[in-house]
């Protein structure tokens, strides 16, 4: 009998409609059903997707080789548009990564129970998104094999990085972020890897999982240390995730370029990052929960909560757009007013309005409960937000650069096939890594789902207790 406590929202309580777990499951059932994707061989659809992703990776490799052999001239960049697809893709990917940390760390600190079922998928997404992001500044170096020059190390050539450059800060931010995200992901994975070891049928599999879980036995001491460590990492990851995209926004905001220099950039970029990441989580989660048979643990309650968060972060982004355009006008500066006018009416105006449509109007659908529960609508909306967040970065980065303070330096911009190859190829590579990973590690945290089941039990006991008191204490 569970101790009564209001540990999780459950249907039956006032105004709670959707359950966090569908049905009551024993520990054995949960272990079995959540290891299903790992146990089973991939079907035909799986291999078809892998092949498709491999083809995209082929295009990516060709683009990378061309970039390295020819140099940045193979891209559509020019002067003054020295930053274009490379940096847009970088910001887009690193932004996507942020939702993983939000779900795994910030929602853990906020004690949101619904994070348990989806944090693994979100964190996996984060790891690969950060990897994709890191490639673009490296390629943009022109001579990527000298990437280590970005790190401050005492070399005999005395080449020190320029510490006043935001790109050096980025280097520190991204490597720290990747390290902490990886540790967080791996630490969370340990008990599940042990479950996979215990359930493995072939000795070889058992050996590999046994190695990966670092000898986890599930003793009380293990759990105690694991919990403390997990909470500490969550505490560290939270300021980190904010600082990473803040630094990304500094890349632009510390300059004096109209359209880039704006003090609202740091919080606006962080909100936008989480917004895009949530959209990517939904894009991946909706098919995954169906295909991997996870609908009993990733329920409509999760989709509903993600849609609400998408609406919240989308509203913050919409506020930032509005405020930025207002402040540009209010500043009464010719340059500021003119660049925002160019955004709205210039040669790239359709991309600006596409951004507004995707990021401001589309999330408004989620005010409606019915639409939040229509999976097709949610999936399409999430895709559109992904597109919108990419085009937002295009407007900020490339369009601002086409119109600097000197009209004689103005230029246009158009990407080349190599640019497209790097963008679509990075999406393919991301998909490939994601597909492989869900076959190797349990996509839903098994131990945390079991804990959630207990919290649901506690909440049910609490509900019964409350009803008993209400019934006994007379009508009120």
């Amino acid at each position: 009998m569970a101790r009564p406590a209001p540990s999780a929202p459950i249907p039956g309580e006032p105004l709670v409609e959707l359950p966090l777990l569908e049905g009551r499951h024993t520990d054995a059932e949960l272990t079995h059903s959540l290891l299903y994707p790992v146990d089973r061989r991939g079907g035909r659809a799986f291999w078809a997707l892998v092949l498709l992703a491999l083809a995209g990776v082929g295009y990516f490799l060709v683009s990378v080789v061309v970039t390295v052999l020819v140099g940045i001239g193979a891209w559509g960049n020019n002067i003054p548009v020295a930053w274009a697809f490379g940096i847009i893709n970088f910001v887009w990917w690193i932004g996507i990564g942020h939702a993983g940390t939000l779900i795994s760390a910030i929602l853990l600190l906020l004690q949101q129970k619904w994070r348990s079922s989806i944090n693994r998928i979100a964190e996996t997404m984060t790891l690969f998104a950060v990897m994709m992001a890191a490639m673009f500044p490296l390629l943009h170096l022109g001579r990527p094999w000298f990437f280590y020059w970005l790190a401050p190390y005492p070399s005999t050539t005395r080449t020190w990085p320029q510490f006043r450059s935001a790109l050096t800060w980025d280097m520190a931010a991204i490597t720290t972020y990747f390290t902490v995200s990886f540790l967080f992901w791996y630490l969370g994975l340990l008990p599940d890897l042990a479950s996979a070891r215990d359930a493995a049928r072939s000795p070889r599999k058992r050996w590999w999982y046994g190695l990966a879980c670092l000898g986890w036995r599930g003793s009380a001491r293990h759990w105690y240390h694991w919990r403390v460590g997990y909470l500490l990492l969550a505490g560290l990851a939270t300021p980190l995730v904010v600082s990473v995209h803040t630094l990304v926004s500094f890349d632009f905001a510390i300059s004096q370029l109209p359209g880039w220099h704006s003090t609202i950039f740091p919080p606006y970029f962080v909100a936008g990052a989480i917004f895009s990441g949530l959209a990517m989580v939904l894009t991946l989660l909706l098919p995954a929960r169906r295909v991997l048979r996870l609908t009993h643990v990733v329920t409509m309650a999760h989709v509903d909560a993600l849609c609400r968060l998408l609406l919240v972060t989308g509203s913050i982004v919409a506020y930032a757009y509005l405020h930025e355009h207002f402040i540009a006008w209010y500043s009464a500066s010719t340059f500021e007013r003119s660049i925002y006018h160019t955004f709205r009416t210039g040669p790239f105006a359709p991309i600006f309005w596409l951004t507004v449509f995707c990021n401001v109007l589309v999330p408004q659908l989620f005010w409606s409960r019915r639409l939040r529960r229509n999976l097709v609508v949610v999936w399409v909306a999430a895709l559109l937000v992904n597109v919108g967040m990419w085009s937002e970065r295009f407007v900020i980065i490339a369009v601002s650069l086409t119109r600097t303070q000197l009209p004689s330096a103005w230029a246009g911009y158009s990407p080349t096939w190599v640019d497209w190859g790097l963008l679509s190829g990075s999406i393919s590579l991301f998909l490939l890594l994601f597909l492989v990973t869900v076959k190797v590690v349990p996509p839903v945290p098994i131990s945390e789902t079991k804990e959630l089941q207990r919290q649901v039990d506690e909440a049910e006991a609490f509900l019964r207790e409350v009803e008993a008191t209400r019934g006994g204490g007379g009508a009120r």
Partner: protein
Amino acid sequence: MNPVLPRFEGGQRLVLGCAAVGTLGLGLTALGLTQNTRETLFSYHFAFTYWMGLALGALLLLATFHAARARWPTAVRRPLELGAATLPLFALLFVPVVLGLSPLFPWVHPPADLPPHAREQLLAKAPYLNVPFFLVRTVLYFTVWSAVAWLLLHWSTRQDESGDVDLTVRQRRLSAGGLPVLGLTTSFAAVDWLMSLEPRWVSSVFSAYFFIGTWVGALALLVVVAASARGAGLFGALLGPTHFRLLGTLLFAFVCLWAYIAFCQYMLIWVADLPEEVPWVLARTEHWRPVAVVLVLGHFALPFLLLLQRRLKADRRLLAVVALWLLAMHALDTWWLVMPALHPERPTLHWTSLTAFVGVGGIAAAAALWLARGRYTAPVGDPFLLHSLKVKVP
């Protein structure tokens, strides 16, 4: 009688005391008006901004709790509702600011010695910065805020009697739907009332800086009220260490958020060094350096270190001390935002800053306490009150 809590019937002397102190403070401030009009008006504007900010912060916090469907704050919700419901009073308290528009806001009558390009800039902003539109906007802000605050209080107190779940739905809907409007009005109010004190200066994150400051203030005030309200019929007696830990953690988060926004604004303006932006920062961090240093240490570093301690947060007395300190720091922060517009060259404290502060505060506190009388000090009919009382933290 309600099984959880009786109605709050005391506090009569407190209301009268606060009102008396408030009237005295405002009376003395009015005397200052005859002595140094401009100085006194700025002092009053600072006091108004501070106390109005607390009420507005309470409203934003309340709406956020509702929109997030948060259950644990149910037991501490009533003070937020009462605080927010004093907003109509602030519409009345805004009258002196309206009467002193010209001395306060240079854009009303640009000074004669203004360089031509600056005059041109002000002219370009005139479609927004002009007296009629300013007044229309002010009326709009107060109407929206008062309407939301009163509806939330009204529905919540009606629920005390009926326990109707439908009233919770209404409060949640109004809060969620209202938050975008509240956010926009708050942010434009910050531009109107604070940013336009120096009309050539712009910073797009300033509004966020203002309203996050009000969150810190409102939450700190809530902690102080919750820790001290332990008498008969008061909700403080229902609270345990877990509630204070949760409040303290939230306060910690807001202190960090405030510091984050403050740093970003400072750093970005400092590094870009643009002639329109940098004078505001120069006045506040170079000429007013001692105040800026106290803010960095007292509004961030010290509370950051203190609020990391779990044991401190669970102790209502210790947490209340930290919250009182933060309220003082928030006052310093507001003073530091307003007064350098008048004295950019060095920190100057005029006695009317103190009398106005006590005056507006006394009146506002009296109003909030008066509203509390005869009501329950916790939402006793809320379906989630028990969830809140039994809240468990792993």
